[in-house]
């Protein structure tokens, strides 16, 4: 038994090393000056180490703007999406009305269509509404893209809340909105957390749509800004990775802090990270 267990740990550790080495190497490179980034043999421990790349990124000023853009977009899109989805999910879970199943199936159809397939007509739509090159344009379509999944996730949760609780509140004179706000939402907190986290990550990382509609430099979000850091000739890798690390920090923090909800969200069988 013992050797088998040790072998297992060794295999797992080797795999984990493969997963982590690129990250460590990225951190190491972000601490190197340009002349050392493609030096052979490569340096794992930067010598001399420098914080110059971080300094340059932070002093550029526009990086703060990109960070702020990403934050504004991700937070507003997540808030709006989770609220609208929760309302829809509640409507589907708690009421009977004509064409309910039919409408829900239409929503599931939206779940199956990958976002980027719709990028051309959505671009025309955004143009029609004057949303090109605006953060609002990002928010609106990020919300649109996450509605189906979040509604699907939350409906199952609302359905599991016993009807008797609703009845009791109704007899006490609580209206529909109060029952939703005071009863259903607090009870669905774990599912809401899952939906919030996944929506936040997806919007924080989104690339294709932002690349398509954002043209002014001051409206770029982090993924676009970082992708554009690589020059046509000779990329400043240290700079790129310093920016990358600053950009993924919030994501890794959210992931580590809310791990439990990640597992829950994944096992509810609906979310592809």
């Amino acid at each position, binding site marked *: 038994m013992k050797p088998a267990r040790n072998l*297992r740990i060794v295999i797992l550790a080797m*795999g*984990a090393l493969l*997963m*982590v080495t*690129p990250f460590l*190497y*990225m951190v190491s*490179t972000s601490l190197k000056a340009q002349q050392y980034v493609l*030096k052979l*043999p490569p340096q794992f421990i930067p010598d001399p180490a420098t914080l110059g790349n971080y300094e340059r990124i932070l002093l550029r000023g526009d990086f703060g703007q990109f960070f702020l853009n990403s934050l504004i977009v991700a937070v507003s899109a997540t808030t709006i999406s989770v609220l*609208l989805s929760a*309302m*829809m999910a*509640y*409507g*589907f879970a*708690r*009421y009977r009305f004509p064409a309910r199943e039919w*409408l829900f199936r239409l*929503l599931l*159809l939206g779940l*199956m269509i*990958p976002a*980027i397939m*719709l*990028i*051309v*007509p*959505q671009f025309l739509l955004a143009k029609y509404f004057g949303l090109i090159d605006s953060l609002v344009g990002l928010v609106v*379509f990020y*919300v649109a*893209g996450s*509605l*189906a999944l979040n*509604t699907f996730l939350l409906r199952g949760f609302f359905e599991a809340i016993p009807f008797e609780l609703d009845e009791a509140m109704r007899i006490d004179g609580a209206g*529909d909105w109060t029952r*939703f706000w005071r009863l259903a939402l607090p009870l669905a907190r774990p599912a809401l957390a899952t939906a919030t986290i996944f929506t936040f*990550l997806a919007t924080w*990382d989104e*690339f*294709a749509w932002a*690349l398509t509609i954002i043209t002014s430099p001051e409206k770029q979000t*982090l993924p676009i800004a*970082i*992708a554009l850091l*690589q020059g046509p000739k000779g990329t400043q890798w240290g700079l*790129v*990775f310093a920016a*990358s690390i600053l*950009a*993924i920090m919030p*994501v890794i923090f959210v*992931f580590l802090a809310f*791990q439990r909800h990640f*597992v829950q969200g*994944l*096992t509810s*069988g609906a979310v*592809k990270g």
Partner: protein
Amino acid sequence: MHDRIRHLRSAVPPRTRWRSYLAPALFITPGFALFLVTVIYPMVQAFQISLYDWQIVAGAVSTFIGFDNYARAFNDERFWLALSNSGLYMLFTVPPQVVLGLGVAMLLKDKSPAQPLFRVLYYLPVVTSWVVVSLLFRYLFADRGLINFALDDLLQLTDGKISWLSGRWTALVAICALGVWKGVGWSMMIFLAALQGVPRDLEEAAIIDGASRWQRFLVVTLPAIWPAMIFVVIMLVIGGFNVFASVMVMTGGGPAGQTEVLLTYMYRQAFEYLDFGYGSAIAVILTVLVFLLSAAQLRLFRDPAAGDAR
């Protein structure tokens, strides 16, 4: 139950019945209206645009050309190249992600002090943005990058002079390597959850019957996690066709369009050449392909699962 509801419903006067629809309407309408306008309408419009020689310039008239854009795709060598690259990507990323993900999950399934740590480490690439990891892999696979150094000086497998991103095949290897590396944690997590549902008593019974580890895996574990397996494979195949950011960032479809995949090709047609009609036709073809593949897999997977479960 249903009958009783219907009965009740016909008993209440029509005005009250309509009022009972008011609450769900208010809950659903805001989200659903947005969904209809921004997702369902574009879905229909994508098909419509694909039938036109679409003019983006204001004032220019788009002409209806029927299925010409589709015919063009079938005669377009670069479309076939992109399609085959997408297919190759799927072929070389889906099986490794399934096998490695399941393998790691099997090794990790028993609770141990190290389990949470390993879980986090394997999942880390999944939560990291595509743009960042694509840049990272571009750097690792650079001519003077870490991969060449490792293959030459550490493992002595090659002369360390492979110019990974400047040839079709080697670039695809790099792009696929990224796909697998980023995705293993996801399938591991799904399998890990599914493995918690493997019935303990069945496993013990198999041990008593003297079944080998491999037999136990085939007879007890695999059937129990089959639904998760179906889910993982279908999601990965869809994800494989959706590869976009990594190709865009690592090679930009180059050299000379050699590593273009369907979505990058579609994107280029639409937003570089402003040929929205042709771009939409490619998007529609891709959507149909994804649907057909998913349906085929469901059919293919269902039979053995039903057989084994009994």
